């Protein structure tokens, strides 16, 4: 299957980043339609569309929107998770930079459907260009009466502001993001069933919808063309509808964002990105650093869909597809993955705070050529102690890639530990190693 450009259709057109250009291409038709509809009817369209959250977990979007109290007793908040931090993912960045109005309009539609009062876009502070594009879009929307007081003559007021982070992957976790927006350290909060859902008590303990940038950007198409139409996309899969933007990076001829319909195969996606560079396909991490690595043989036929990917041994995740060629040392790749999670663990709970550091220490001694005989079992044991025992998803996400790599590429770990050097002994592989590791290859 080829690319299916729905969200990114006009990504190359600078005019689309202005309100006039956006409206010339049909922009804000969806909001106009939505405000003429009953609020519940908007949520029903989202239900029909089968839209699932694009931030990583794939949770049905309509359930969140529908979970907001219908008899309003307090202010309602609409929150956009634009803290994209997952290694391998850069789609939200492109959406904000090139099609920012889709996200702004989508958030406004969510606001209408749930009687929202105020929206916030929480953007990671590194994304200055994206934040500027969103700033411009919001300012233009305010000036045209598409945000602010009495939107489109409905008597409904909705404000939208930008809030930037300050460098923390954990702030992408929704409850940590809310802590951060409320002026605290970016640490997560107790979750359902131990605490109410964000739809009941989110930001400032008020009903809050939180979705990813891409999720909101889908909403205008769903409202304008109908949920039934949207659900025809990806109909070949079990339960994944619409398009998904995959950020494809690594050893590729044309790395970049590619929007595809669910049901496309990983092989087709890799071909869209120009195919593998510098050698044969060895492995692929299809959905961002948190998901399980897949072996090259057989992965080309794996179908992209939430359930399908799970059956293939991995996950759609946030869509950060990293492709590795034959000169990649998997042990080195996993060492670097472990470093990321050890670095970004917020330190709140022991399994993750200690476990990620232990995994890194063991990986580090392996890549320094000092691996010990039982290290693989020890690593696997630690992943089990972290997975399911951590306070938030970061701990699980740190354990999965390590556990998967130990299962999928055991020979490389065994070799490295036994010989004190990488099994991948090619000049290309050596060139990638940090200087301190060049004697052992990594």
């Amino acid at each position, binding site marked *: 299957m080829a690319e299916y450009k729905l969200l990114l259709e006009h990504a190359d057109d600078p005019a689309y980043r202005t309100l006039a250009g956006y409206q010339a291409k049909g922009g804000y038709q969806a909001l106009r339609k939505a405000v003429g509809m009953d609020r519940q009817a908007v949520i029903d369209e989202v239900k029909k569309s089968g839209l699932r959250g694009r931030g990583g977990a794939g949770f049905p979007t309509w359930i969140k929107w529908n979970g907001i109290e219908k008899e309003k007793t307090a202010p309602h908040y609409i929150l956009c998770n634009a803290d994209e931090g997952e290694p391998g993912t850069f789609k939200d960045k492109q959406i904000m930079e090139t099609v920012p109005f889709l996200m702004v309009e989508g958030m406004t539609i969510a606001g209408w459907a749930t009687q929202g009062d105020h929206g916030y876009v929480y953007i990671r502070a590194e994304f200055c260009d994206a934040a500027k594009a969103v700033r411009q879009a919001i300012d233009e929307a305010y000036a045209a009466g598409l945000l602010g007081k009495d939107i489109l003559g409905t008597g409904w007021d909705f404000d939208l502001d930008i809030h930037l982070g300050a460098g923390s992957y954990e702030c992408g976790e929704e409850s940590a993001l809310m802590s951060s927006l409320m002026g605290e350290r970016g640490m997560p909060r107790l979750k359902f069933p131990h605490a109410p859902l964000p739809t009941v008590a989110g930001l400032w303990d008020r009903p809050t919808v939180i979705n990813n940038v891409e999720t909101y950007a889908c909403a205008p198409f769903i409202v304008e063309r109908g949920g039934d139409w949207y659900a025809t996309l990806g109909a070949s899969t079990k339960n994944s509808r619409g398009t998904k933007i995959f950020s494809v990076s690594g050893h590729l001829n044309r790395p970049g964002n590619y929007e595809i319909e669910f049901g496309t195969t990983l092989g087709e996606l890799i071909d869209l990105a120009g195919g593998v560079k510098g050698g044969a396909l060895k492995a692929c991490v299809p959905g961002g650093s948190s998901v399980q690595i897949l072996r090259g043989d057989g992965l080309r036929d794996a179908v992209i869909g939430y359930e399908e990917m799970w059956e293939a041994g991995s996950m759609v995740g946030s869509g950060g597809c990293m492709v590795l060629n034959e000169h990649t040392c998997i042990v080195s*790749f996993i060492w670097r993955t472990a470093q990321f999670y050890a670095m970004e663990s917020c330190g709140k709970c022991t399994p993750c705070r200690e476990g990620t550091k232990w995994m890194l220490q063991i990986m580090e001694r392996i890549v320094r050529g000092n691996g010990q005989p039982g290290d693989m079992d020890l690593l696997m044991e630690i992943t089990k102690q972290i997975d399911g025992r951590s306070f938030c998803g970061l701990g699980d996400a740190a354990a999965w890639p390590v556990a998967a790599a130990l299962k999928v590429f055991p020979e490389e770990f065994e070799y490295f530990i036994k010989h004190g050097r990488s099994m991948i002994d090619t000049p290309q592989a050596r060139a990638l190693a940090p200087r301190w590791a060049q004697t052992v290859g990594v």
Partner: protein
Amino acid sequence: MSELIQIGAARPKAPQPQDLTLRWSERAVEELEALKGHYPDLKSLILPALWISQREYGGHLPPEGIAEVAARLQRTYAEIEGVATFYSMYNTAHAPGRHMIEVCTCLSCHMCGAYRLADILEEKLGVKMGETTEDGVFTLHEVECLDACDRAPVIQVGPDYLDPQATLQDEGGEAKMRAWVDRLIDDLRSRPEPSSVRLADTVVQVHVRATER
């Protein structure tokens, strides 16, 4: 363990309230005022106020910069310091050089030669990751994924993402990286404005609505 992980680094002492002189410019005070309308609870101003302070104090957050945020938001020093030190982009540990070069060595960048690029930068500047050149112009830093992996290996300087448009898999990739680093350093040397001030200013400006300017 990696340069990235520093445990138990000593924190500088907080200034006594009577010793504190407020240093923010009039513009900074106005910006903070404007942002007050964005949130139902003023505690949310802590992150943006720290960004303002980082700009006002020349691109880093000395104890005075933290204390000024505490004073202006009427919160304790301990609370503000606790928040500031959680986030990696507040320069609370030390003042960076005029240009902080942040090299992403995370997964895709690593796979495309980020460690080689880091070596080239270290050689060129004669400092290691985490260090500042003697003339105070450059600080090198290793960072986690900048989420621009299609441009791997990529670096950030202030608000800008930059990349050599070459990977180690390309023909002559390393030579291209070297030539690019030479050009980059020359170019940055000619820029007087500290990049961390530019970054902080961009971040602050993005918060402010057009109608509030």
